[in-house]
């Protein structure tokens, strides 16, 4: 620990901190533009100047290491004069267009010029003008406003792993540019909008939409993937105007993916705002009473084994819970499922479907082996963590297949499932790598769980890991990247039906066993409809609503309070930022009312009762789960094949994204994105 003084206050800080960080520890805020906690230190904006005793000149605190006995002063006239000088130079070439600038109201330069700005300019020369750059459909540039902090350059190089932005020229002619004249090849690109301290890089879809002080800010959880990114939803009336990241060091640090950020305009389009009934192939508007009565008469006349319910990808846990209660108690049916493909599930223990090493744990890992996974598209934020681990520790990364550019180098095997057999029989170099690693990380992606040999791949590797003591209380190397935001929650609540890991409900559905199918926000199901009567409950008029006979308009994730469990098993609550459009209702309410129509008794009196009942069940489940011993399955067989990696349509993966114009633009912009297969 170092002892030093900040403004005559004694503070003790750890070694290795900078003067700026030491001041922050002492509770003193230092103005800055270029410094950012998550990026490397540049030291080029000079706004963080402080006075240090015995130093004749002011010192840039962001780049100066704190040392023993330093006497730092941040409130002297000397410091103020120095900062005022820096600010005057920054403003010399910065346009005074705050009234038409989208950054206005949340601009670092605007805020800090209130403290350090001089009231009029002494700069009589012409201001410089810099041409705009094309950075794709997400980022609007106004490079004349740039103050050359190079945060975007460092973000692209360090975090996103796409060194495509740079600072060219020198002196007054310096410009931030991308030579590509197209969007960055990264799913994290729009984070530069948040990083930009001025209005040089702003959000293109949000351009001139609202001022920050007009917006209602709600802290929430993202549902675009299973990571459970922490977000802030900004609404203006009903409309969700934008989505910003919220800091959570355990999950997303400070970043969110482009899909999380920009799929929100899909919440305004294609919405289901009233119940519909299909007559002769055409949808007609109906009232809630009408549809409930039709559903009641249909359900009453069908054998309970001929009814099934499938829950979709964006459904929150309260709804999943009441959905299950409705089927189990009101209908007496157990045909419910949350998997919309034939993926393998061993629900015996919770660790069989979680990312057990935790997202934070990636940084500790010393060997990463990915089986049938492309984390760049399946969990973008998680991929950024793997890159961080690679940059910090040069972690060795091996993928079972060649999966194209991942923003870090990796070795790849040829994808032959025969290799799994070799690995578990200690006949492969990977076997030793896993054994020799202290904290290996084995990541199973959806592609491996969907393949025909899924059971063999998963169970045999798990047994191998257990034998080699890589699954213990200290470190659990078994990791699954869940597919959807609802996946872990629905497994925790028991929304599945399986004996041997296969998807029984889906099998029966494909064999047209069921007469009534209740789709709860299911839009990714490939279903050939025959004579089934389909009830669809959801927020968007997408693939699910298309095949439905009755549509119950529900709410999207920003329009209702709801719990989500992320892929590492962390329970988080998303808060209501807006409300469902017109006749649409919150999802749990619809099912509760339907239950009342069916049985003249509500399942739950109110939302609180539902919440506490669900949380109780979850707690009991987790407690019980900890004491279960897992059994090892042996003598499994596999099919000779090459493991295929699903190339998911990243920008079109769910109903909200498919309704979003911005996502369509992104998709068109990156339509040329191909796997070249030469990287790594």
């Amino acid at each position, binding site marked *: 620990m170092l002892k030093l003084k900040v403004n005559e206050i004694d503070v003790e800080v750890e070694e290795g901190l900078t003067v700026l960080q030491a001041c922050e520890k002492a509770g003193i805020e230092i103005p800055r533009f270029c410094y950012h906690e998550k990026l490397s230190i540049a030291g080029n904006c000079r706004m963080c100047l402080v006075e240090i005793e015995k130093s004749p000149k002011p010192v840039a605190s962001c780049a100066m290491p704190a040392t023993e006995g330093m006497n730092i002063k941040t409130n002297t006239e000397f410091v103020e004069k120095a900062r005022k000088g820096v600010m005057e130079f920054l403003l010399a070439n910065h346009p005074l267009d705050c009234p038409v600038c989208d950054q206005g109201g949340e601009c670092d330069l605007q805020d800090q010029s209130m403290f350090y700005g001089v009231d009029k300019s002494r700069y009589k020369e012409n201001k410089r003008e810099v041409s705009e750059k094309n950075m794709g459909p997400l980022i609007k540039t106004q490079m004349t406003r740039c103050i050359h902090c190079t945060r975007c350059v460092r973000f692209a*190089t360090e975090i996103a792993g796409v*060194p*495509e*932005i*740079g*600072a*060219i*020229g*020198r002196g007054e*002619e310096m*410009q931030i540019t*991308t*030579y590509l004249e197209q969007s960055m090849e990264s799913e994290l690109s729009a984070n530069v909008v948040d990083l930009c301290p001025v209005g040089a890089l702003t959000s293109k879809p949000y351009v001139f939409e609202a001022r920050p002080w007009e917006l209602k800010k709600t802290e929430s959880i993202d549902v675009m993937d299973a990571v459970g990114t922490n977000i802030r939803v900004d609404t203006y009336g009903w409309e969700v105007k934008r989505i910003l990241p919220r800091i959570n060091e355990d999950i997303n640090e400070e970043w969110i993916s482009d899909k999380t950020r920009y799929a929100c305009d899909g919440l305004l389009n294609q919405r289901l705002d009233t119940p519909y009934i299909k007559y002769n192939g055409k949808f007609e508007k109906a009232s809630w009473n009408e549809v409930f009565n039709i559903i009641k008469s249909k359900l009453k006349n069908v054998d309970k084994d001929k009814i099934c319910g499938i829950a979709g990808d964006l459904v929150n846990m309260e709804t999943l819970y009441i959905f299950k209660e409705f089927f189990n108690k009101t209908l007496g049916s157990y045909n419910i499922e949350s998997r919309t493909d034939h993926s393998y599930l061993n629900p015996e223990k919770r660790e069989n479907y979680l990312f057990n090493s935790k997202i934070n744990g990636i940084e500790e890992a010393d060997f990463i082996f990915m089986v049938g996974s492309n984390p760049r598209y399946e969990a973008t934020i998680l991929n950024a963590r793997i890159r961080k681990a690679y940059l910090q520790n040069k972690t060795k990364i091996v993928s079972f297949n060649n999966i194209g550019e991942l923003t870090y180098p990796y070795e790849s095997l040829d994808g032959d499932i025969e290799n799994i057999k070799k690995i578990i029989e200690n006949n492969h170099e990977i076997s030793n790598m896993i054994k020799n690693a202290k904290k290996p990380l084995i990541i199973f992606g959806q592609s491996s769980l969907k393949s025909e040999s899924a059971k063999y791949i998963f169970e045999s590797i798990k047994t191998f890991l257990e034998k080699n003591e890589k699954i213990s209380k200290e470190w659990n190397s078994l990791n699954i990247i869940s597919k959807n935001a609802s996946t872990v929650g629905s497994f925790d609540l028991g929304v599945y039906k399986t004996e041997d890991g296969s998807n029984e409900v889906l099998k029966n559905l494909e064999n047209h066993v069921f007469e009534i199918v209740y789709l709860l926000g299911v839009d990714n199901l490939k279903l050939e409809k025959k004579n089934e009567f389909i009830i669809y409950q959801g927020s968007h008029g997408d693939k699910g609503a298309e095949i439905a006979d009755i549509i119950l308009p529900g709410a999207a994730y920003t329009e209702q309070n709801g719990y989500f469990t992320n892929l590492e098993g962390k329970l988080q609550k998303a808060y209501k930022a807006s409300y469902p459009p017109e006749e649409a209702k919150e999802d749990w309410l619809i099912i509760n009312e339907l239950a009342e129509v069916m049985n003249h008794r509500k399942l739950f009196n109110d939302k609180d009762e539902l919440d506490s009942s669900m949380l109780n069940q979850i707690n009991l489940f987790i407690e019980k789960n900890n004491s279960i011993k897992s059994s090892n399955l042996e003598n499994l067989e596999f099919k000779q094949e090459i493991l295929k990696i699903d190339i998911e349509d990243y920008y079109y993966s769910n109903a909200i994204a498919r309704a979003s114009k911005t996502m369509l633009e992104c998709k068109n912009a990156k339509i040329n994105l191909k796997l070249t297969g030469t990287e790594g």
Partner: protein
Amino acid sequence: MSLRKPSKEQPESFKFNSSSLEAAKTIVAKYPKDKQQSAVMALLYIVQKQNNNWIPLAAMKYIGKFLDMPYIKVYEVATFYTMYNLAPVGKHFIQICTTTPCMIRGAYKLVEACKEKISDNENELSKDKNCSWTEVECLGACVNAPMMQINDEYYEDLDKEKTIKILNTILNGKTPKPGSYRGRTNNEPENNRKTLMDLKNA
């Protein structure tokens, strides 16, 4: 000075020839492994020598691959330093020093000569595309002011007439003799003075 933009006409590809490649390898070998990016400036200079005094974008990409560094980083370096030419300047690239000592000794007469003989504007190719001129800052030969540099050679102690003579020689495809044009050896004193002893108040 304004931002130097890369030429609009760019060759499609670039490759080191054998002698450049050898020189490049010698330079890269001077740096520790994984630090070979440090050689970028020297390599850009080699490209410029090989490619008629200018660096095409294809060459920057080539260097990026050669040193395993992002293209944009090479581009940043190349645009930062004014001595890297990003557009064709001709086989004979004439740089006239117009910093104070040379200016006082009549450097602008040299500029006039270039305007007459080569092209009206700076950085503009002559009619036969072989030649261009530019004003530069101090080249460090103030003792022999005014002077100019053509490719690797210094031409010193000039005036307008002598400059025109030199330029004519070049335009005729011959190489003029470098060095002082008032008969001095390097920068020795004129009139055979070897010391300052015989001068009062020197």
